């Protein structure tokens, strides 16, 4: 069976489950008694799902690790108590490992087993205080199975048969159980060996179930009853044997109240494609309007109205597709409590996290990209900002340090503030460090105001970098945070009040347009061409043809000749005469193909396309701007318009 096509979905599903485990486990530590069971059930179900699906996908290592953690959660649940902090630590560590294993799987690598961690989980599950006495309501302990050699004579008419279960079966006891049930339909079972309890524990010695039924029955009739049970090879007559009485069946837990969720899961790739299409439609409808303008008034009349209507519809579509990528910020915010909890334990400082505005919606790509910056800001706040408990008490502050995540929507931006009530930024130290590192002349440092000085925190040398054992597993400094946020079209700023606390303020655009660009170098500049328009790229040497005739100004593409232009000339850049072959990018638009010559092809990159505002949007041939991963801003070209 080809499992590779289920990989994407398995990865997405499992990541969601693991996020659920993490959030619930952290909540469990401080949960009220009433919340305990639903939370534990939830964690158990998540781990159980991961176990089942990873086994199906063939990721044995993941299945085994989930199984071990399931055992620990089950033990805690059966003991009727909350998990102790070391157990929570263990489960969270397991979560991290599982996440890393899923990452491996998603990149085509086989996840390695974690036997040591499994051992620790299983040991914790078996630990003496893990299994506290079970709460009332569970069935009484089953009586032990009678030894196989004891015999009992039945005084009434009876039939004893031995049912053979195939040795191929992975679940022989359950198969035997099925057979037993079938036989039960015809007569009461006087005895069964192994007992029902033994079957429940998965034991079927010798793959043989011996059943004594009341009354006399023809062998063929009984054989017919079990004929439809898979993996049961048959039955045969057997001499009587004694068995233990069957135990009562346990009642399953009552269901939680229903909540129907009218949503559909859509692959993020599909949404990206829809988004790109919608973006293209917006550009195309804009060009349509331009094309209509030069028509004579009489012809234009109705056309104008229809084109405007089309533009409105397309803009509406674009907005809705953008909205489809929106996710509530709680998606990101729910990862934060765990970080705060870990920091609190590691730094030995009591900390609390408040989350406001989790319902604010943000583009999913932006929200995901915010996680690392937020974690870094939290680490800074916990480590450098918030004072030790006794120092806080001496200052008249509550012993528990408070970190607040607050989000709100403001027109077309989403503002997220991470505030702590610690000691604030030490501006003088920032300045001193900057001067020390030669990033700032001493005189300027003197004159610098607080707001400007705070921006120094974003300089590479000055930003704090985290060592490897942080929650996300990557060390980021404020400079990386700034770059990441700016690349997405957002801004970061710091605000601080000495002695009272500091705030990291993120401002993100509420929606984005993501485009895959082909980057080209030309005359020392870099430009982007949307990949959706690029037919192909090729090398051609037009310099030798003396510059005359169509052949000199076209390149062969798939058997046809495509008119070519030097992009530099089109953009008015200084043109160096080039000899020899150079790269040409063949672009398609409005049914026409054009080739543009560039200096070098630099590769592909996915960027956030930022639309131009007036008056730049009037410039023909410019689709917008973008900031590359390197931090470099570039123009994105609309080549068909450029050459039209």
């Amino acid at each position, binding site marked *: *069976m080809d*499992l590779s096509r*289920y990989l994407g*979905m*398995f990865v997405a*599903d499992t990541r969601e489950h693991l996020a659920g485990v993490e959030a619930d486990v952290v909540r469990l530590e401080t949960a009220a008694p009433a919340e305990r069971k639903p939370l534990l059930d*939830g964690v*158990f*179900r998540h781990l*159980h*799902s991961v*176990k*089942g*699906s990873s*086994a*199906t*996908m*063939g990721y044995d290592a993941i299945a085994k690790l989930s*199984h071990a953690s399931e055992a620990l959660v089950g033990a805690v649940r059966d003991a009727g108590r909350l998990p102790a902090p070391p157990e929570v630590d263990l489960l969270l560590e397991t979560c991290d490992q599982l996440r890393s294993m899923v990452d491996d799987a998603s990149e085509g690598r086989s996840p390695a087993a974690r036997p040591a961690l499994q051992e620790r989980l299983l040991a914790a599950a078996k630990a003496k205080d893990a299994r506290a006495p079970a709460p009332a309501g569970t069935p009484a302990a089953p009586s032990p199975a009678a030894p196989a050699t004891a015999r009992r004579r039945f005084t009434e008419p009876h039939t004893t048969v031995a049912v053979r279960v195939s040795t191929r079966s*992975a*679940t022989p*006891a*359950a198969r035997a*159980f*099925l057979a037993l*049930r079938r036989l039960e339909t015809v007569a009461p079972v006087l005895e069964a060996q192994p007992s*029902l309890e033994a*079957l*429940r*524990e*998965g034991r079927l010695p010798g793959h043989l179930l011996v059943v004594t039924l009341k009354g006399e029955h023809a062998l063929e009739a009984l054989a017919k009853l079990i004929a*439809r*049970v*898979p993996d049961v090879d048959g039955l045969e007559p057997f001499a009587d044997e004694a068995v233990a009485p069957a135990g009562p*069946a*346990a009642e*399953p*837990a009552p*269901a*939680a109240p*229903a*909540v129907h969720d009218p949503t559909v*899961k859509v692959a993020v790739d599909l949404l990206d494609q829809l988004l790109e299409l919608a973006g293209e439609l917006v550009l195309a409808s804009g060009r349509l309007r331009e094309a209509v303008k030069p028509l004579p008034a009489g012809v234009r009349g109705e056309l104008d109205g229809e084109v405007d209507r089309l533009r409105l519809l397309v803009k509406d579509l674009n907005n809705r597709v953008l909205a489809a990528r929106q996710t509530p910020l709680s998606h990101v915010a729910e990862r934060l409590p765990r970080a705060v909890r870990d920091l609190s334990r590691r730094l030995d400082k009591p900390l609390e996290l408040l989350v406001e505005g989790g319902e604010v919606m943000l583009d999913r790509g932006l929200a995901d990209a915010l996680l690392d910056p937020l974690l870094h800001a939290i680490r800074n706040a916990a480590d450098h900002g918030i004072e030790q408990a006794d120092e806080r008490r001496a200052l008249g502050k509550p012993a528990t340090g408070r970190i607040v995540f607050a989000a709100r929507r403001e027109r077309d931006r989403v503002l997220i503030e991470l505030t702590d009530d610690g000691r604030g930024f030490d501006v003088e130290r920032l300045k001193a460090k900057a001067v020390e590192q030669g990033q700032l002349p001493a005189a300027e440092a003197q004159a610098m105001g607080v707001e400007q000085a705070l921006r120094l925190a974003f300089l590479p040398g000055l930003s704090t970098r985290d060592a490897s054992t942080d929650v996300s597993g990557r060390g980021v400094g404020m400079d990386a945070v700034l770059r990441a946020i700016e690349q997405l079209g957002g801004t970061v700023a710091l605000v601080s009040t000495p002695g009272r606390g500091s705030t990291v303020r993120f401002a993100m655009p509420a929606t984005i347009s993501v485009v895959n660009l082909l980057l080209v170098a030309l005359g020392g500049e870099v430009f982007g061409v949307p990949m959706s328009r690029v037919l192909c790229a090729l090398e051609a040497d037009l310099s030798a043809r003396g510059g005359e005739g169509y052949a000199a100004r076209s390149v062969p593409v798939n058997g046809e000749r495509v008119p070519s232009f030097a992009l530099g000339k089109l953009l008015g850049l200084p043109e160096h005469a080039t000899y020899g072959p150079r790269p040409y990018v063949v672009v398609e638009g409005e049914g026409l193909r054009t080739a543009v010559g560039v200096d070098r092809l630099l590769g592909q990159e996915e960027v956030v396309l930022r639309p131009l505002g007036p008056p730049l949007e009037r410039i023909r041939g410019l689709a917008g701007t973008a900031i590359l991963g390197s931090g470099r801003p570039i123009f994105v070209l609309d080549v068909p318009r450029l050459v039209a």
Partner: protein
Amino acid sequence: MAKRVLIVDDAVFMRNMIRDIFTGGGFEVVGEAANGLEAVEKYREFKPDLITMDIVMPFKSGIEATREIVAQDANAVVVMCSALGQESLVMEAIEAGATDFIVKPFKEDEVLAIVRKVLGE
């Protein structure tokens, strides 16, 4: 005529995989459900020839759902989908009225063989 199947599992990708196994085996998948509640509703709606039922699911377990479905229709054919090492749950399900069971990780031919046997083909 192709036998009609209702697939119940809380994981989308499991449902997809099971669906592919059945359509590949000549069955008609008439519906899917993601939890025990939906399972009971859709059983009523579609009256399939066969249901594949996951055991551990939110809102209502597969065992509960099986119990309710069998209470409504004693002839319902419910095949439980269990993870390895869950024999006692499987037996609970059987006591609740499940007809048979298949075990994850699924092997396509095994699943179809079991289902065909259970349906008496």
